[in-house]
């Protein structure tokens, strides 16, 4: 871009619009974390469910510990590497960072409180939280599949209260497909097209 001094009014507005769009596209992530956590929760739920049905519940629930720990470590390492490479911090990135930190803390507290006091509401409560995370992220990113994914989680949270603890795992698996995995792939495709 040359430092041309003369701009017409409409050229100025067009320039502003172009720069804002370009800056937002360059700065946005790629949906990786939605896919990572979506597939990890899907795998953990299905392994746990299979464990219960085959009479090995402890082995099944052990999968949660391994997969969630792996997810936490991978996310921390990737996040640190991304921050080092990142050349800008958008307001949305800054907001999302605190949203997902709060989400992580809330999940931890819910597991601690609900598993001890009221196990049957643990997964419905976690689905309510998943819904908040994806709904708010969808709104911040102006990406409707995440918003719908959030609403889908809330509906499934209600469904989860009507089924057995064992079947709540299936509800959880279906929920993450609809709220994390599908929107995550759609977001990744959209962003890779925009960045080309």
């Amino acid at each position: 871009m040359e430092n041309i001094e003369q701009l017409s009014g409409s050229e100025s507005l067009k320039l502003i619009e172009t720069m804002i769009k370009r800056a937002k596209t360059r700065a946005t992530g790629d949906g990786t974390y939605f896919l990572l956590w979506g597939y990890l929760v899907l795998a953990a739920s299905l392994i746990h469910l299979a464990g219960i049905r085959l009479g090995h519940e402890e082995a099944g629930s052990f999968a949660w510990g391994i997969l969630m720990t792996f997810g936490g470590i991978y996310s921390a390492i990737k996040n640190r590497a991304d921050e080092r490479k990142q050349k800008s911090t958008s307001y949305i990135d800054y907001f999302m960072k605190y949203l997902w930190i709060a989400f992580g803390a809330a999940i931890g507290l819910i597991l601690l409180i609900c598993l001890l006091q009221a196990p049957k509401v643990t997964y419905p409560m976690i689905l309510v939280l998943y819904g908040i995370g994806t709904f708010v992220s969808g709104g911040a990113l102006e990406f409707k599949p995440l918003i719908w994914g959030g609403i889908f989680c809330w509906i499934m949270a209600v469904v989860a209260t009507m089924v057995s603890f064992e079947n709540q795992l299936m509800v959880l698996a279906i929920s993450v497909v609809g709220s994390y995995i599908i929107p995550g792939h759609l977001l990744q495709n959209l962003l890779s097209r925009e960045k080309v």
Partner: protein
Amino acid sequence: MKKFDELDPLLHSQLRLAVMSVLVTQKEAEFSFIKETTEATAGNLSASVTKLKDAGYLDVEKKFKDNYPLTICRITARGVQAFEQYVQNLKAYLEPK
């Protein structure tokens, strides 16, 4: 109707307006990010950033990352206000009366 020459002359320049438009969406951005996004040369961009900084529209921080010098730019509250005023004045100018 506002006259065209009432637009902030500091912002009524292609590159300086582009820089402000980029930074208004970012909490902070490296010089290289702004250069890639605006497709400006380093020299032109540096001159524009200096003018905007001298006017109080930008904060510029120089530091080191992995032993390489790094320049980080942030729009100031005054810069945001000036940008918003510019856009308002521009819209008022373009609206037919």
